[in-house]
């Protein structure tokens, strides 16, 4: 579905739209306060961006170094070219260890691979243990945000969900009580699981270890209480040196939630005694994206979510308006690389205001890439034909100054004198839900030439 169509559903609930908008802006504001505590913030962003640029340019070497060191540490390393191969690796590992029940912590990669339904089909019980993820798992919904997966739900809806799935009394909506209920429920799951699955925030080439950052502690509860730890990592998650974590850990949580660091920053080098670690290195289209000069920087992403929290379109249209699993600005530049036809409307779900680029801790030129995708997709005829026609007409008008001036005069006349139904109709999407501003009587050009002379 096109973004504009899906967004329409979301914004039809006015109250929810406003609330969603405010909740995310609140997170953005916390981020602003946090980064002001760090005088060298801009320097850190530049360093992070340079480290990532190096990683992309040397990815094969670093991956091989990482693999060799990980194997030395006793980690079993697997490679997967796509989602299917990844899922099969997971299933085989689980079968090999006779695992019936798996506790999972947050991993956008396993979402991308649609791992849960695959495992469930194969008879494995999968429990998402991040609180937000558990809530949406009960509801059979995908995450609507990469850091705050249940941000689209009210506390009343969470209470209702727990009533249905955990049998609690009806009408409980206090977040503290609901969290306590989830804590007790998930503790039992941690204690009875056979295996734990995690994502990877950073894979460290020079140690062969990897780092997972969380606030709840669910990752470590799962991993340390079970015999098998499976970690899935996209190829772009590599960093060269352990010290590079100094840069990334200072940026990640501040950008994500405004915390000075995540509550837990866990470094896994070797398995604890009696345990095994399997690590799956996943490509799934990333090595192709690496070759697209205009878009390679999208692979720098450390999944902090800041670009979503700040995006005026995301905030007011919600995560489910985007056709790809990762929503918002970063999703909109990753999705067309994954499938240009299916996600052709996503790069258009932006005002190109550039706020995403401003907040991105690894300095991805997100709004520039959105703009480039629009052009590439339009050239490839993946966008709708009306959009192409309008663009073409705009192109002609903008190319001829006289025609531009003339169309300005006629437009001002038209907007000033036309009856309402002619302007606010189905063809004018901008007239939906908003009043157009009153029309100036003269163009900027006329105003400027008059006033410049007057001021001289």
């Amino acid at each position: 579905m096109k973004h504009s169509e899906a967004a329409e559903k979301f914004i039809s609930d006015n109250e929810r739209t406003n609330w969603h908008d405010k909740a995310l802006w609140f997170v953005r504001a916390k981020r602003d306060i946090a980064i002001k505590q760090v005088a060298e913030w801009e320097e850190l962003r530049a360093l992070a961006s340079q480290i990532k640029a190096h990683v992309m340019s040397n990815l094969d070497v670093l991956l091989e170094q990482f693999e060799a060191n990980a194997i030395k540490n006793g980690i079993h390393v697997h490679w997967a070219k796509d989602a299917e191969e990844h899922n099969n690796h997971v299933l085989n590992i689980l079968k090999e260890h006779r695992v019936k029940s798996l506790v999972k912590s947050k991993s956008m990669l396993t979402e991308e691979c649609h791992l849960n339904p695959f495992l469930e089909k194969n008879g494995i019980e999968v429990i998402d243990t991040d609180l937000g993820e558990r809530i949406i798992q009960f509801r059979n919904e995908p995450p609507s945000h990469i850091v705050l997966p249940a941000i689209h739900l009210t506390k009343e809806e969470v209470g209702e969900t727990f009533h249905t799935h955990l049998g609690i009394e009806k009408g409980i909506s206090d977040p503290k009580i609901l969290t306590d209920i989830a804590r007790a429920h998930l503790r039992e799951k941690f204690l009875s699981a056979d295996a734990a699955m995690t994502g990877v925030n950073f894979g460290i080439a020079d140690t062969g270890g990897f780092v997972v950052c969380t606030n709840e502690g669910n990752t470590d509860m799962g991993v340390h209480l079970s015999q098998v730890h499976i970690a899935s990592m996209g190829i772009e998650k590599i960093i060269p040196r352990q010290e590079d974590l100094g840069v990334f850990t200072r940026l990640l949580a501040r950008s994500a939630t405004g915390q000075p660091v995540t509550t837990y920053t866990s470094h896994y080098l070797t398995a604890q005694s009696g345990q095994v670690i399997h690590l799956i290195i996943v490509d799934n289209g990333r090595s192709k994206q690496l070759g697209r000069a205009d878009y390679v920087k999208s692979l720098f992403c450390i999944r902090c979510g800041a670009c979503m929290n700040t995006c005026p379109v995301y905030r007011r249209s919600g995560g489910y308006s985007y056709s790809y699993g990762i929503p918002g600005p970063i999703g909109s530049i990753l999705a067309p690389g994954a499938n240009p036809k299916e996600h052709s409307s996503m790069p258009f779900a932006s005002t190109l205001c550039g706020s995403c680029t401003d907040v991105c801790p690894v300095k991805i030129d997100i709004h520039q890439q959105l703009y480039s995708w629009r052009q590439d997709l339009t050239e490839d005829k993946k966008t709708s034909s009306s959009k192409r026609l309008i663009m073409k007409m705009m192109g002609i008008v903008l190319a001829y100054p006289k025609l531009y001036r003339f169309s300005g005069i006629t437009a001002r006349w038209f907007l000033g004198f036309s009856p309402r139904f002619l302007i606010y109709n189905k063809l004018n999407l901008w007239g939906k839900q908003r009043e157009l501003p009153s029309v100036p009587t003269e163009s900027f050009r006329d105003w400027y030439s008059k006033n410049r002379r007057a001021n001289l």
Partner: protein
Amino acid sequence: MSRESILAQIRKSKPELVGLPILPECHIVEGDLTEQFKKTLLLVGGQAIEISEGDIELHIKKMFGYLKLTACNDGTLNFSNIDTCSIDDPRELRDIDLAVLRCRFGVAENGAVWLTDSDLSHRALPFITQHCVLIIPKNGMVWNMHEAYQRIKQENYNGFGVFISGPSKTADIEQSLVIGAHGPKSLTVFLTT
């Protein structure tokens, strides 16, 4: 083999080599490390208390005397009533109320404390316990994460290492902060002199 084909595709697509930047070694100390640590830990839901070595036991008894099962990684402190080293299956730690752990060092800018396998009888301990006390020497705090990783590099660690900054928390329900998601419901750091 997928490994070969992925690496081959990367070699084909990767951009021209870009140099790796040198990391900042020096750090700016912008104030009193202890004060910064205390302030930040409070902000993330924990608390730091300056205390002399000799007072630790008394203080813990005063604060947590009501709790039943306490584990400690330091035999010289006398209030542990469970020997976690004799436990094989970490699931048996499920009833522990309080873990008191001597750790390596703290980070002033974010209130985090570094601990590793050699501080832990079980990796699960600081996560499964209901309450947690971490003890670090007041001197020897580092200012920021660059310094922290320099120190980790020198000291090295085998197996597992974790920075813990405050008690476990979540804001997944309507952005309301709730302390005690899956791990400890309280986290206290003793800064010893």
